[in-house]
């Protein structure tokens, strides 16, 4: 195998594929491989973990077709270190030469590195508008569970057919995010698929990185076991999650006793500030207290180690004064995801779920359980 490529293009392709390997144990030791496959003028780079495969393609000046396995981390670092310009790659039996300018690396072929193969469903693909979908993913993926030791099915995002179109749902049992896409038929009526949030995060990153006028289309297909997202130059194949996704509809209260209307930007900025005193932002137990009153909301974070932060945000509040506490990062996740200028926070009781949504933005809802404070 032999080709010349533009450094920036090659790097982007390598990085995209390597993101499938980034969480794989051993990634830091260089034993995780990327497969480089050259045919004609097209280079395909494939990275994988056991449940996710990312194949990224780019145009290169190909000289000799071939396939080689290289250590993922090292090769990404090497190409990143090159100056912009041409990179020549020549694969031998035992070593691959990466050369740019006067710099040359001979990298040992990653013998024994594993590349996962997932079956590509044969079903006909469904086209999804990329930018809109990516935007929805950005709102929902954040609510999925990251650590899968508790309940693997919660590390996924549920794509479910609704009467009006498609709904995305994710929850980690503390919060629950919904996003509806009216008129988007992606999953067959009555059907649902549970897609790992990790794969969708990559879809979101790639589909969302296009410029506004460049609404890339995603082609989606799935079987009972796997799902494929085809983007321009990238294919993401993921295993679907098994297991029962919880019945979440019933968790949503039908009405709320208290309603706060605030400027979304103001609330987000204030939350970011007061959260500074929380040392470990993953700490689910240092809450931000929201004292809701006629003039708006007073935010307070109190930590024994770092100190105290307070800020008031003006707003309109209906109901008797009430204090409710939340994990500041969880609340911020919901506030960030709202698109509308005016955000509505709805509460029933400091021990019951609260709702974050945008005014006039019915397609998105973020339900959040409070933190119980004594």
């Amino acid at each position: 195998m032999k080709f010349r490529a533009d450094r920036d293009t090659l790097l982007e392709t390598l990085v995209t594929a390597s993101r499938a390997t980034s969480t794989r144990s051993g990634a830091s030791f260089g034993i995780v491989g990327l497969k480089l496959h050259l045919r004609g003028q097209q280079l395909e780079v494939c990275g994988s973990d056991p449940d996710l495969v990312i194949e990224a393609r780019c145009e290169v000046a190909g000289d000799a077709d071939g396939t080689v396995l290289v250590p993922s981390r090292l090769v990404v670092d090497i190409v990143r270190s090159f100056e912009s310009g041409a990179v020549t790659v020549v694969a031998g039996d035992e070593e691959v030469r990466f050369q740019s300018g006067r710099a040359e690396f001979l990298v040992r072929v990653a013998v024994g590195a594993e590349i996962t193969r997932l079956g590509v469903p044969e079903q006909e693909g469904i086209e999804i508008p990329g930018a809109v979908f990516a935007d929805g993913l950005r709102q929902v993926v954040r609510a999925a569970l990251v650590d899968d030791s508790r309940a693997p099915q919660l590390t996924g995002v549920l794509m479910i057919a609704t009467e009006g179109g498609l709904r995305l749902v994710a929850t980690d049992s503390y919060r629950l995010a919904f996003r509806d896409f009216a008129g988007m038929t992606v999953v067959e009526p009555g059907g649902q698929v549970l897609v790992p949030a990790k794969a969708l995060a990559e879809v979101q990153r790639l589909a969302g990185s296009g410029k506004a006028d460049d609404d890339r289309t995603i082609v989606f297909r799935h079987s009972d076991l796997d799902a494929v997202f085809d983007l321009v130059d990238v294919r993401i194949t993921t295993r679907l999650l098994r297991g029962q996704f919880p019945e979440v509809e019933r968790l949503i209260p039908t009405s709320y006793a208290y309603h706060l209307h605030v400027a979304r930007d103001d609330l987000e900025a204030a939350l970011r500030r007061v959260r500074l005193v929380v040392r470990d932002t993953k700490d689910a137990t240092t809450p931000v207290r929201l004292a809701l009153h006629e003039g708006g909301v007073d935010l307070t974070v109190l930590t024994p180690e770092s100190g105290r932060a307070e800020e008031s945000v003006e707003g309109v509040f209906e109901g008797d004064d009430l204090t409710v506490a939340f994990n500041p990062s969880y609340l911020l996740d919901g506030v960030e995801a709202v698109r509308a200028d005016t955000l509505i926070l709805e509460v029933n009781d400091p021990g019951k779920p609260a709702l974050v949504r945008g005014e006039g933005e019915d397609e998105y809802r973020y339900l959040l359980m409070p933190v119980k404070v004594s």
Partner: protein
Amino acid sequence: MTAPLDILHVDMDAFFAAVEILDDPSLQGLPVIVGGTGSRGVVASCSYEARAVGVRSAMPMVEARRRCPRAVVLSGRHGRYGEVSRRLHEIFEVFTPIIEPISLDEAFLDVSGGHRLFGSSMEIAEAIRARVAEDLKLSCSVGIARCKLLAKLASRAAKPIASVSGPLAGPGIFVVDPERELEFLHPRPVSDLWGVGPRTAERLARYGIATIGDLANVDAEHLVRFVGRSAGAQLHDLAWARDDRPVEMGRPVKSVGHEETFAVDVHDREQLRLEVTRMAEAVGSRLRASDLGGRTVTVKLRYGDFTTITRSHSLHRPVASSAELVKIAAALLSGADVHPGVRLLGVSVSSLETRAAASGEQLSLWEPAGGETDLASAARADLDAVVDAIRERYGVAAVGPAALVGASGLRVKQLGDSQWGPSR
């Protein structure tokens, strides 16, 4: 100006054994050994009568019994020693707030702030010894020096000396004269230094380094080659009595755990599950008693051939609930291989935080994976509180999980039991 002699090392004399003799005067004058009484037990403490015939701390109990067949061997009462230790601390606190506890029976004190009130370091040491003798009816030895290393060695030099005709009183207090520190330090064996364990001592011996003086005369760069970079530099400094480590107060607890060696290796998964339940349950009690919660639960297994494995699980929030700890520990155990036979089992909780700092509890929309609701979680917290209250009043063994009831009644893990080996 001479360097100030502000560091005291106070070490109780044969502490556990002395407490046993105090509580049962009929043991007076007999060789008393406290430790694991079973075949795999070790000696934790022994009276001077036992020392006179060669019994030492950390010696296998089998060996100790062989050397001293007439010894009174006791399994120890950790709770009682803790109680005496707390009273010892109260005495220290009279003289200085800067106390670094090393274990139940020894501590470093920095008395630099106490001279105006209590006089010289010597006078403070005398006062501490007098209070310990009067209030606790026990004896201790005190080392006084410029630094921790020398103070610790000095307290050893102050100790009583065991002899076949009964213990000979030691000086009780030993001061290392700043002018003569090296004279004191250099003749001692290298193993007296911090960081020199049996293996390092053996390696140094191969290069002909036996005493601290030998070590001091080795070029620092050579030393690095023998024992590694960081250890080398540190040992070289210590060998020249350069030790500027301060007396550190209240080092926070890093983990809370229990471990136990079994009399015979256990192959039965069900028995191990009960043992892990017993330990996790007790760890929960201890965490709650200290107002702590931890995010990482670790189960440790040591097989018959001494290979040791650990299995950990980290949580997104600190836990202290016994039921939850039992569940996690049991799950960790079920993922471990027990086939080779388990010699030692341990459960510990780390990444601790005070529950006061953890000032809230994140509520769940529901409990995932078929777990319990918040209602059940509240009930569980109530249960823990009730169990803790009963134990406070009637003792640790007064209540415990039904699974732990066996032919010999309820087997609740208590702090310190079996810590020196199994009782049979």
